[in-house]
């Protein structure tokens, strides 16, 4: 049930020079939100910017007695809208439309859940980890970033009993390099066991690499994509991603706001950016 709420900012916590967490009071929205879904946020009341911005639901917040209270956003400042959210003051009301999109599929024991996050790609995973652990599913987080300062909420995952594997490009925390390396080793080590489900969110090349590695180990995977979205409701066709519905079918565009943002890894028809480096 999609609703539009003027959610009051209960707190805005700075995590780094360009990342923050905004907690919002929105019981009705939280009540139906599921891990992997997103909300369309209006960063300003006026025309700057004109459109809403899509954000993963980072945490689903509950009251002391466990009833839904709201949700939070893990925000990274990259432009006009995210800068407004970076500076948003508590008590401000922000229009939030949601919950939107297809959530993650939750796996049950004995299958394990391995989350693979790059940078702010961590966003959909805290809510997911809670939901998985609640049903007793063993969960690991493979988490990569440029440096230690780009890694957030590690203890929150630890407290949930999530096994952590951390890699940073500068080696300032965990092993030096990309998170795909420890993931690869872990999959080789676990080759005998039931292949884990991979949940992936991060930069496109990383997501693509993880899905490929997983495939060689017979792992199912779900990827959370972040295309630009004009409406989040299926109205504008701006958010399309290329998918294949079976292996020999030719790829076609589907709306990520409706059929995603979470897609089965093997459904995605990855394509090289035409002319980027």
């Amino acid at each position, binding site marked *: *049930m*999609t609703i*539009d709420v003027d959610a009051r900012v209960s707190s805005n916590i700075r995590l780094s020079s360009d990342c923050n967490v905004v907690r919002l009071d929105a019981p009705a929205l939280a009540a139906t939100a599921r891990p992997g879904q997103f909300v369309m946020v*209006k960063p300003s009341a006026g*025309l700057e*910017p*004109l*459109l*809403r911005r899509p954000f993963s639901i980072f945490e689903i917040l509950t009251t002391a007695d466990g009833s839904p209270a709201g949700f939070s956003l893990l925000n990274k400042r990259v432009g006009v809208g995210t800068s407004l959210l970076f500076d948003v003051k508590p008590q401000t009301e922000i*229009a939030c*439309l949601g919950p939107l999109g297809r959530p993650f599929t939750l796996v049950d024991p004995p299958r394990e859940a391995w989350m693979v996050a790059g940078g702010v790609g961590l966003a959909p995973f805290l809510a997911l980890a809670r939901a998985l652990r609640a049903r007793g599913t063993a969960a690991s987080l493979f988490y990569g970033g440029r440096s230690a300062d780009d890694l957030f909420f590690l203890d929150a995952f630890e407290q949930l009993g999530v096994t952590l594997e951390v890699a940073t490009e500068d080696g300032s925390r965990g092993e030096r390099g990309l998170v795909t390396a420890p993931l690869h080793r872990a999959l080789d080590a676990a080759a005998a066991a039931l292949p884990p489900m991979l949940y992936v969110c991060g930069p496109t090349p990383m997501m693509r690499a993880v899905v490929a590695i997983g495939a060689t180990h017979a792992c199912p995977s779900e990827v959370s994509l972040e*295309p*630009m979205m*004009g*409406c989040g*409701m*299926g*109205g*504008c*066709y*701006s*958010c*399309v*991603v290329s998918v294949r519905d079976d292996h020999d079918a030719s790829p*076609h*565009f589907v709306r990520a706001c*409706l059929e995603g943002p979470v897609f089965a890894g093997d459904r995605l028809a990855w394509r090289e950016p*035409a002319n980027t480096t």
Partner: protein
Amino acid sequence: MDLSVDIGSLGLKNPLIAASGCFGYGLEYADVVDLASLGGVAVKGLFLAEREGHEPPRIVETPAGMLNAIGLQGIGVHRFVREKLPALRACGATTIVNICGSSIDEYAEIARVLSDAEGVSAIELNISCPNIKEGGITFGCSAAGTRDVVRAVRAATPLPIMPKLTPNVSDIAGIAVAAEDAGADAVSLVNTFLAMAIDVETRRPKLSNVVGGLSGPAIRPIAVRMVYECRQAVNIPIVGMGGIMTATDVLEFLIAGATAVQVGTANFIDPHIWPKLLTGLDAYGARHGLTTIRELIGTLAPADTQGWTSS
């Protein structure tokens, strides 16, 4: 206040129509807005066959507006009739089908298909999509081309037909006249303005299609002027659009001469906008003692020339 208006033989319960391409096939919004509460729903532009559309990026924001180059991705008229129309009927939507063709025959053929279908209230002829050469813009940019398409579709269907005009022309009123002469029941305007945006750091266009269509509040003053010009030139109803965000904007178009309006970009920002607009229209009607909103259409008063304003 009575909000009902007539677009030729088509009666609308209010003047608010969801603009084509900004409301999917309507059904995407069925759980946030009662489709039957809208004056009409103009669905995403349809060709005879399915289309993939353009590569992303397909949209980019600009000051008080946005560019789009979707490229008319769509399921084609046959799948639309099979898969969408029945559900739209079930919702009680007044469905206006926006159609595109790469030839006059294609327009006529789509019109025939829709005439045989149940639940189509009117056809909007998209002869103005700026984003694809074969999107009819070639017809829409000349009075002659407009006349030819409208004539052919007129001959092919008894349904009300409403060509949608492009603003990218020298004389939009002349094109509206051509449409009227050729038997159009109404004209809708404006489609988007051909525009572009460049990322100066990469020196690349921000849209994969290089150019796209500008919509949103930025274009409203031009769109209102075009509606006003067409109102002086034709007798058929005009459906106005371009940057409507509030009830005040709706009223501006009606006063300029529109019988109904379409709302596009604003629906992306607020899919719950429809009841808000209706409330705003009612409040205005009450404030100004209107019994029907039709009293307002085309009632622009002379300018008030004051030497200087007073504080």
